[in-house]
């Protein structure tokens, strides 16, 4: 069982001093969504759980000041979470050597499985210190899914007319209460002061009105352009069930289309955000 291996590893890491805190999943009751737990003593290792409720992207916890204060972390990641971890390293937010990464094979989280799982192609994390797999003889760590599968929902959405799309978003954003849960759970929203909280000038209207909500969601999505690692935590966290995944997909598709880039897939690749190429497309520029 994976959970036994996890607990054993957790206890060992803490007792050997490899890590000062193990960030993993805990659960109040079977079937309830798992939440992050921060285990600092080997004897607490049995608080860890591993099941299909472990949806949270724990990479997002690393940005928090209070977590940083706990000392060197060991963090449990799924394939999708690992992509965020790689992006954090690319953006100088973490130093890979200072984190112990426990990869766990995942073949779908959530019940029913989250939308992202259908086209998942990193079932076994690769950028890890240890990997725990279901069985040894599983299929390859990376299964390539055609990009059409990844963006199928987007493509279907884009078949609507622009007017219908705008109407859709007006309805979606109309529900937004500006709780910023999307920002809070995003592993890559690590700014010390979010632009949404900036005044003088006030770039984004802070009120939860269409004006402020459009400005916020445009900004959130675009700040993650070619960076979003596709964990979909924003969409899951949204109390208003705004389809934020669709916006993330749009920019992911653009990044893959233009630069052949998928955020967090290759720790060696140079990110296209903040860079340029002389060959960039400019058919839209007159």
């Amino acid at each position, binding site marked *: 069982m994976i959970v036994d291996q996890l607990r054993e590893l957790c206890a060992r890491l803490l007792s050997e001093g490899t890590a000062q805190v193990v960030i993993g999943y805990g659960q109040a009751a079977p079937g309830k969504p798992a939440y992050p737990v921060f285990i600092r003593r080997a004897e607490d290792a049995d608080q860890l759980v591993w099941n299909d409720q472990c949806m949270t992207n724990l990479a997002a916890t690393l940005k928090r000041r209070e977590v940083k204060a706990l000392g060197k972390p060991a963090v449990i990641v799924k394939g999708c979470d690992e992509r965020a971890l790689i992006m954090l390293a690319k953006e100088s937010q973490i130093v890979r050597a200072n984190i112990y990464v426990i990869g766990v094979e995942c073949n779908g989280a959530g019940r029913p499985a989250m939308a992202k799982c259908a086209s998942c192609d990193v079932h076994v994390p690769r950028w890890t210190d240890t990997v725990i797999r279901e069985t040894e003889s599983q299929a390859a760590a990376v299964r390539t899914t055609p990009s059409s599968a990844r963006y199928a929902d987007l493509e279907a959405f884009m078949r609507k007319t622009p007017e219908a799309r705008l109407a859709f978003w007006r309805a979606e954003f109309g529900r937004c209460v500006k709780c910023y849960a999307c920002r809070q759970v995003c592993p890559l929203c690590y700014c010390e002061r979010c632009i949404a909280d*900036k005044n003088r000038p006030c770039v984004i209207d802070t009120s939860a009105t269409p004006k402020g909500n459009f400005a916020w969601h445009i900004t959130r999505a675009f700040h993650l352009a070619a960076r979003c690692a596709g964990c979909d935590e924003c969409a899951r966290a949204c109390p208003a069930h705004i389809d934020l995944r669709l916006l993330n997909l749009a920019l992911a598709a653009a990044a893959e289309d233009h630069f052949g880039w998928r955020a967090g897939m290759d720790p060696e690749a140079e990110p296209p955000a903040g860079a340029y190429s002389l060959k960039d497309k400019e058919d839209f520029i007159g």
Partner: protein
Amino acid sequence: MARIGVFTCWCGENVARHVDIEKVTETVAQMPGVRCSINYKYMCSDPGQAQIRDKIQSERLTGLVVASCSPHMHLKTFRKAAQTAGLNPYLVEMANIREHCSWVHHNREEATAKALDLIRMSVEKVKRDHELVPIRVPLTRRALVIGGGVAGIQAALDIADAGHEVALVEREPSIGGKMAGLSETFPTLDCSQCILTPRMVEVGQHPNIKLYTYSEVESVEGYVGNFKITIRQKARYVDMVKCTGCGDCWNSCPIKKNLSEFDCGMGFRKAIYIPFPQAVPARPVIDRLACTRLKRGTGCGLCEKKCQAKAINFADEDKLVVEQAGAVIVATGYKLYNIAKEQDNAQLSGYGEYGYGKYKDVIDALQFERLVSASGPTGGEIKRPSDGKIPQSVVFIKCVGSRDNAKGLAYCSKICCMYTAKHTMLYKHKTPGGEAHVFYMDIRAGGKAYDEFVRRAIEQDGAKYYRGRVSKITEENGKLIVRGADTLAGAPVTIEADMVVLAVAMRPADGVHALAQKLNVGYDEFGFLSESHPKLRPVETNAAGVFICGACHAPKDIPEAVAQASAAAGKTLVMFGREELTREPEIARINEQTCAACYTCVRGCPYTAIERAETLTPKGVHVKYTARVNEGLCMGCGTCVALCPSKSAELEGFTEQQIYSMVESLMT
């Protein structure tokens, strides 16, 4: 509380014809924060400026808007006026109601409405301007010249003669560059070495010049006025101080069959050698790949035994030296398109049809220079490489690689027409009865006495010129069968030649890209370094304090390279003539408190002006990581502002607050 003065200019009839000046003046007076609104016929005239100065003082203005022409026309004028009256010049904005309004919109109502909008935006902007002072940058009055060819030599001597110190870095064991290997020079046919070697000696002996030969630039830090350059001095295995250059070592070295770089592979040198007799410094170097001792760790060592000065040091290692300089001059020169099969660039495909490096008697132009040179491997006798016979018929082919899009190089190498004419002359002079055939596409001989020179080759020396390219060269019975065309006669031409000389394209020297990246200098698609402006700033680059000259910039001949070198030296001296450098203060700054240290700005800055830094407490305790703008490097483009997700980057003169208030001022 803002006290803004708005000064609307009629520009004679230019503005007043289409813009209702009175209405503008009255409306503007009601705008919030506007203390006074006046108009005048010519704001830029002395009485106009006097009014501005008076109002600044009498109304204690905190900002100034001049609604007149383009800021490109008069912003400096009005800033100066403000400064004279005691107002910080960066508290001046212009509303362009002439070029952008009265000159292009002739409906009076519309033009007046637009003028008001433009002024309203400027008022909002100026309210949020900050007082700025020009940035002062200390200046090191020392220059670094990279490349010791004729361009580098000229630049170094010019600066040194003006009394400033120069560090000259040369990759090869001796300075002199390509020119040192040339035979005679067009259009005068004076001996290349005769004119160059005295200059080389001058460099070697100049008290202001510090020579680093067999050295390369390892890294560059800093910015204009304050560069810190690390130089790698490659292990020479010869103590430059002890060595007297007597020659006992190379005379005794038994490893003889090493192709001489100086002779372009046409001759040989020893494992310990000086590249050529007039080398500066006249100190040998050991080829670590050829020397028995250095290859095996034991054995030979004959040179060490023979050296009475005890200058041989087999334990020598590369050394890193740091030099400070206020300006850098790049003069790294060129190399030739490779006629051997393997190309260093995937876009270049080589000349299979000319036999690649297959036929020994197909040589390139620099090899021919060595063959004709009195100091060359044949002592100046033109003997062909394969069997040493004197070729009775030589074919010269121009535009090999140059102007050949299919082979990857679209440009003209500029000097080949001239040196090919020279080659035919030298060959004809040395080989009575010999035939010189030239295949050319165009003869480009613009220059003082240049065309006359080419005509002389044709008319007096009897070189045969065919207007056409060569399609294929094959070898048969010791002859090279050259199949070309004479497009003027409208016929294919086949010539049986004893030797073929290819005027191959000039390309930037190896390693220049890495160097350009270290210096933050741009280069074009062919790898030639980019000047700042093709007409008006031909030796400057977009990296402040870095100048270029010679063939690293584009193919050019000796006089042009020398002229450009003197220009680069002149630009350097202009800089050195100042007490300190001042730079425009409208640059970026980072709010270190809110910076999340994602370093997107660091990656994106076109000037590498943003650095990774740490915020420390006064006692030096780490608080956080942050990005930080180097004031010496920032040019104020603002790319970092747009890239920064938390808007921790800000650009003076174009702050977020200013721009947003301008946009919002348009909301009605």
